[in-house]
């Protein structure tokens, strides 16, 4: 069964360091999402891609976060510099295509980031 892959699964870093997370969506899925889930909260959207284009990054803290999906397939989310408040689970999800028909979002296992 096809799955969304994420790496690393766990990352521990010190504040002010740079970190990067990788996501490989299900093959053929044109839409990709990055969500952040702080402990005890529900996930919140950081950025949405349609192919290689950003659809929505209104909640992405652009002074320190960046996201790219250069070839419209896999994606990288970067934080530089990391802050203590960035400790969270970072979830990647993908869905088939944009359009009026509902497309289920499939979630990866997430990357748990701890900033010391």
């Amino acid at each position, binding site marked *: 069964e096809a799955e969304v892959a994420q790496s690393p699964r766990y990352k521990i870093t010190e504040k002010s360091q740079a970190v990067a997370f990788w996501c490989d969506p299900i093959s053929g899925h044109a839409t990709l*999402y990055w969500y952040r889930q702080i402990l*005890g909260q529900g996930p919140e*959207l950081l950025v949405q891609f349609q192919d290689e284009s950003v659809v929505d990054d209104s909640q992405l803290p652009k002074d320190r976060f960046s996201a790219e999906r250069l070839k419209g397939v896999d994606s990288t989310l970067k934080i530089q510099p990391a802050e203590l408040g960035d400790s969270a689970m970072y979830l990647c999800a993908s869905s088939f295509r944009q359009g009026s028909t*509902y497309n289920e979002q499939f979630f990866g*296992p997430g990357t748990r980031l701890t900033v010391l």
Partner: protein
Amino acid sequence: AQSVTQLDSQVPVFEEAPVELRCNYSSSVSVYLFWYVQYPNQGLQLLLKYLSGSTLVESINGFEAEFNKSQTSFHLRKPSVHISDTAEYFCAVSAVYGSNSGNTPLVFGKGTRLSVIA
């Protein structure tokens, strides 16, 4: 904008007892409604969804949820829980508008931790 309120952060229940996890939402446009389940250190799995049609939707493992438009609610129920149902449950909505209703982001509640006691 949309918002989701899950009224209970934790729900302990004995095995084989019934359970209801409550969810209310707010939105200025029509929404799709979802329940997701999350096991420790794992991603989210779709449990069930309401898109249109019958307001009562069911999952393959015995959960059901009913969409109540007048009360803007989508409560999750199971008549008899098992130990394996212990997990975090998230209610979510996504906006339905225009030609891109199929891929609007999910807006989640804060989650309800269901603990099933033997």
